[in-house]
């Protein structure tokens, strides 16, 4: 974060548009699909612009090793992983410090919405594979995981969506990409369940004033509402087409 962007690149142009032509409050083009993997109980692929994340959900099931089991609810296990080919330079496939931390962050943003009490002494496995990284991989991961959980039929309190708000050249922008994240002043990933009015993830890297923070949060919640509506549309389309096919 910080520093100067490459020559010829203007993060915010004179017309107020960002380097990729978006207005500050505009999301990247989002694509979602569920049921993309045959062997998983639930799966989804989510694209935020050039960022692409594949999610697979297994369970609730009894794990081979029993130590993760909890006596009163299902244990959620999340593995966030970046494919070696997901970045410009090859990323070592071994789990890095960052990936282990992001696994925890994504897990904690899903835990409040999964109704785990129905399945004590089991685990729900969520695998997140970043196929292509262009900023906002954790937010795309949360969205993909939420879709895959719904696709697996696991009871959830609501669908969650996630987006990152950034501050670039003093302007608050929605859904930061790699470049804006690298050269911007702040980055604030937010995950929330708009149906319940609950925020499940809030991180802030950089500095925002009180006013900026409130505005950023409002922008995030508004965008998340759009994202969750898209999730619902995708699920509705998938399941109505399946039901229609059977008749």
């Amino acid at each position, binding site marked *: 974060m910080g520093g100067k962007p490459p020559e010829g690149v203007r993060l915010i142009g004179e017309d107020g548009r960002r380097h990729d032509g978006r207005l500050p409050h505009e999301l990247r083009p989002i694509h979602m699909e569920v049921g993309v993997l045959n062997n998983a*109980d*639930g799966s989804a692929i989510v694209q935020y612009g050039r960022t692409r994340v594949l999610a697979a959900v*297994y*369970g*609730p*099931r*009894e*794990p*081979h090793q029993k130590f993760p089991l909890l006596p009163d609810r299902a244990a959620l296990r999340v593995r966030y992983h970046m494919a070696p080919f997901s970045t410009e330079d090859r990323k070592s496939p071994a789990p890095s410090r960052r990936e282990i931390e992001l696994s925890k962050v994504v897990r904690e943003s899903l835990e409040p*919405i999964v*109704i785990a009490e129905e*399945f*004590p*002494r*089991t685990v729900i496995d969520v695998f997140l594979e970043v196929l292509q990284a262009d900023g906002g991989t954790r937010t795309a991961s949360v969205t993909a995981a939420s879709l895959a959980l*719904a*696709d*697996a*039929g*696991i*009871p*959830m*309190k*609501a*669908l969650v969506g996630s987006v990152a708000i950034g501050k670039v050249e003093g302007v608050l922008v929605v859904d930061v990409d790699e470049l804006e994240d690298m050269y911007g002043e702040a980055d604030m990933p937010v995950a929330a*369940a708009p*149906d*319940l009015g609950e925020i499940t993830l809030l991180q802030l890297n950089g500095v925002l004033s009180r006013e900026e923070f409130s505005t950023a949060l409002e922008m995030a919640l508004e965008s998340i509402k759009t994202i969750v509506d898209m999730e*619902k549309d995708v*699920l*509705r389309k998938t*399941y*109505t087409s*399946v*039901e229609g096919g059977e008749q």
Partner: protein
Amino acid sequence: MSFYSRQLLEKGEVMPGDEIAGIEEFLPGEGVYVDEVDGVIRAAVVGRAYLDMSSRVAYVKPARKMEVAGLHDEVVGMVTGVRSDLVFVDIYGVVRLSPKPRWLYELDAPSSAAIPISQVADEYVKEIDEYYRLSDWIVGKIVSKHPPYTLTTVDPKYGVLYARCGKCGTLLEYQSNRSLKCPKCGNVEKRKVSALARSRLIQIRPIRNLVEYRYPW
């Protein structure tokens, strides 16, 4: 037709978090949860919501059912341990025995279960060895809510489906409901044999040391 004469009211497609009914009016059924903050019943899964007007239950019929074992499910598993008071079983799949035996689905991962001696057979069981032995394939019914499950095999339709000879390892053949015979060495072993063990609809094919079950049954 009055409103109350309708038994089932369809509320259409729902997504997790969608409001279905007020908590004062309905009881929560399958696929829903109670949001205590707002005092409403919300959908927990993707599916179609219904209001049962006679029993006052709100529930969601899921669009995709989870493939997990649960209470009252009939399951197939392998005996992994025998104790004087308990038989340990690994459950591999869920079946439906009536009206026609049918394989429903295989579990993601084997689920552990146990048959207490009181649930082994409909008689006084002195030696549990005379009912089940290690590596027997059995069919039973789940009588507990959560894993490790408790199974019952009291009913005649439950019991051993396939077993191997303790002397030579050959697949044992049906002799009676209480015994199996080895076609190779003539050894007779005592078991609680399922009434369905001879059914052609239930087939477990032995391949080397593994057992491959063929489905649909």
